[in-house]
């Protein structure tokens, strides 16, 4: 069997690409990462996918289709369950069913999955199973250590304080696979800058939710599938959530916050609520933009929670919701961004 394996540069690859890629390379595989998203991928993905799927998942399929003929096998993560703070946290159903959906829609590629489910076993076990499925059951330990090291080294620097940038600072809340992929979010951040605002993206927010490390945190010091903000907080030495796959926010503390009506058990939404809370607490931030995809199942709940939290913690702060799908048009987005910025400017700071 050929030793080629593909990774889609979509969805959670925006958080964990280096980890996966290094791991697979250490198993002596030829890893091909699909190129940055282009319009063809968006369109081909939207063509094969069910119409009601969210844009990032459609684009994931577009990446998979683009890898046909280039690789024999395709690496697809399955994000199922994490345990934290005595509770269970889940990926969204789309992240949980991604390998099955890819198998059904791209039958030409043999899908190899990394199944992260702490109900069944640790992350280490998941990587061991992946290595075994790839025919190299013994090399996993070294490969995983190297992969974690590489991921730690590749952490992006936190967005520094904006150096006397003019214009209102606006928090942009959204998943990195949407905000960091310009083909999906149509260059939202750049459009905001052009409209004279300073966007602060949620995945690089300087999180305010810091506290002393919990018992859980002292157990390990490894890095893995953590959203970037958490890994960075760990690097700053402030996070209580240092273990692999540990929570994006310190759930125990966060649950005591005022204004958050309830915490959903969606792993990847906690980060958004956490970032929104931090941004709402920052008097320098004048408005929030909640960016999500049309037909994203979790965002109606998360956005509602964030709006309520803002209403309590920062009454009167303007919040705008933006949805993206494959039909989104740039002109409409520019208009909305400009009018939101105008609104903030007219209100003035504070």
């Amino acid at each position: 069997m050929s030793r080629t394996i593909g990774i889609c540069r979509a969805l959670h690859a925006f958080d964990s690409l280096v980890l996966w890629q290094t791991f697979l390379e250490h198993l002596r595989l030829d890893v091909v990462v699909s190129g940055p998203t282009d319009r063809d991928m968006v369109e081909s993905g939207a063509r094969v996918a069910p119409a009601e799927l969210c844009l990032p998942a459609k684009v994931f399929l577009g990446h998979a289709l683009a890898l046909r003929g280039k690789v024999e096998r395709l690496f697809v993560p399955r994000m199922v369950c994490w345990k934290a703070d005595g509770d269970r946290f889940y990926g969204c159903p789309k992240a949980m069913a991604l390998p099955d959906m890819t198998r059904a829609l791209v039958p030409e590629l043999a899908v190899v999955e990394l199944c992260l489910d702490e109900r069944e076993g640790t992350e280490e076990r998941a990587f061991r199973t992946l290595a075994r499925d790839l025919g190299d059951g013994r090399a996993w330990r070294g490969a995983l250590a190297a992969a974690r090291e590489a991921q730690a080294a590749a952490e992006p620097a936190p967005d520094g304080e904006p150096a006397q940038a003019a214009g209102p600072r606006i928090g942009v809340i959204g998943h990195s696979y949407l905000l960091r992929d310009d083909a999906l979010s149509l260059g939202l951040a750049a459009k905001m800058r052009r409209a004279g605002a300073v966007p602060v993206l949620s995945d690089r927010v300087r999180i305010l939710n810091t506290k002393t490390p919990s018992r859980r945190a002292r157990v390990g010091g490894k890095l893995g599938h953590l959203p970037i903000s958490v890994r960075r907080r760990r690097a700053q030495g402030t996070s209580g959530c240092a273990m692999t796959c540990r929570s994006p926010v310190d759930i125990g503390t966060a649950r005591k916050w005022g204004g958050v009506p309830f915490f959903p058990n969606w792993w990847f939404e906690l980060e958004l609520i956490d970032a929104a809370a931090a941004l709402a607490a920052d008097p320098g931030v004048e408005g929030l933009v909640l960016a999500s995809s049309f037909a994203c199942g979790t965002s109606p709940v998360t956005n509602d929670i964030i709006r309520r939290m803002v209403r309590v913690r920062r009454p009167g702060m303007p919040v705008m919701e933006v949805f993206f799908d494959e039909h989104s048009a740039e002109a409409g987005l520019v208009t909305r961004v400009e009018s939101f910025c105008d609104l903030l400017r007219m209100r003035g700071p504070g």
Partner: protein
Amino acid sequence: MRVAFPYMGTIRIPLVPILKTLGAEAVVPGPPDREVLELGVRLAPEQMCIPFKLTLGNMVRSLELGADTLAYTSGSWSCRYGYYGRLQQVILRDLGYEYRLLDLRHDRIPEIARTVASLSGGDWVLAIGRLARALRLGWHKSAAVDESESAARACLPFAREPARVRRELNRALADIEAADTVRELEALRRGIPARFRAIPRDGLEDAVRVKLVGESYCTIEPFVSFDVARKLGELGVLVDPFLTGHRWLGFHGFRVGADELNRAKRAARRYWRYCVGGEDENSLGHLILAAEQGYDGVVHLHPFGCMPGTVVQPAMQRAAEDYGIPYLALSLDEHSSETGMLTRLEAFVSMMRRRRARGLTPAVSR
């Protein structure tokens, strides 16, 4: 305590006597209608799924009728259904309604038990006796409802006057609601087959058979799907839903029918390794089982934007192709149109009839 609960289809028929026997008062607003839907749509986040909007509308109605406690099955998993109770609570609180949320989940069993005991004045022995009686009565009612509905479904495609089947079913349901004891219910249940046998038939003996699968609310609550089961029946189709109110209570409330769930799970395994909710695994498994049992087609219902319902579709499509069984997925929300739906159903039915006339049955049963 005046308790209200979200309900679908005829599930209120067994639930009301359960609550009454326990010593609570059940507040049951009428079945959902346009007005409830509009209310729910106005109050809910725009992109929430249709069961959320309808149950929210119905909750407002229940509170207007004086309910002080809302009982919800709830949980924390990846489907939005797990958050219905809590999200509706914050929405209803904003509107100024005050009530108690009784979260029916496994980790709240002590609280639920205390509530049940308090209904009997804190007398645990009395409460346990009442609970046993309530569940027995409820279960029999639920079984009687299920038997009537399935007899009606079996009779509808062949009936000379479809309206008579509907009338007979309504009468049977009213009798079941009125029955107070298990003995009465048993007598009623014995009489059900004869009641529907008495309806004159039109002489047609051959009907195409359709398996109805999909998300539970859409499958069980006729208002959302414009009563798809009845529409198909009136088009001369024998409809066999894999989920009914009774079976839903059995699977999720009483944990019975594990064998059947496992059979569906095993059948689905090749295409679907993880159940993510929305009856995805069951729907897929029953599509394959239906193909093996020689059904003529599968109709899949799900709310628009339902996460599990959407992701399972490609796998169902693939399985339907592999097993050679026609598959129709219908996505439902507040903008669904009855006419559009009927057109699609008619086209699907005539396609199944043509396949059957040409001797095309699902590949496996050939």
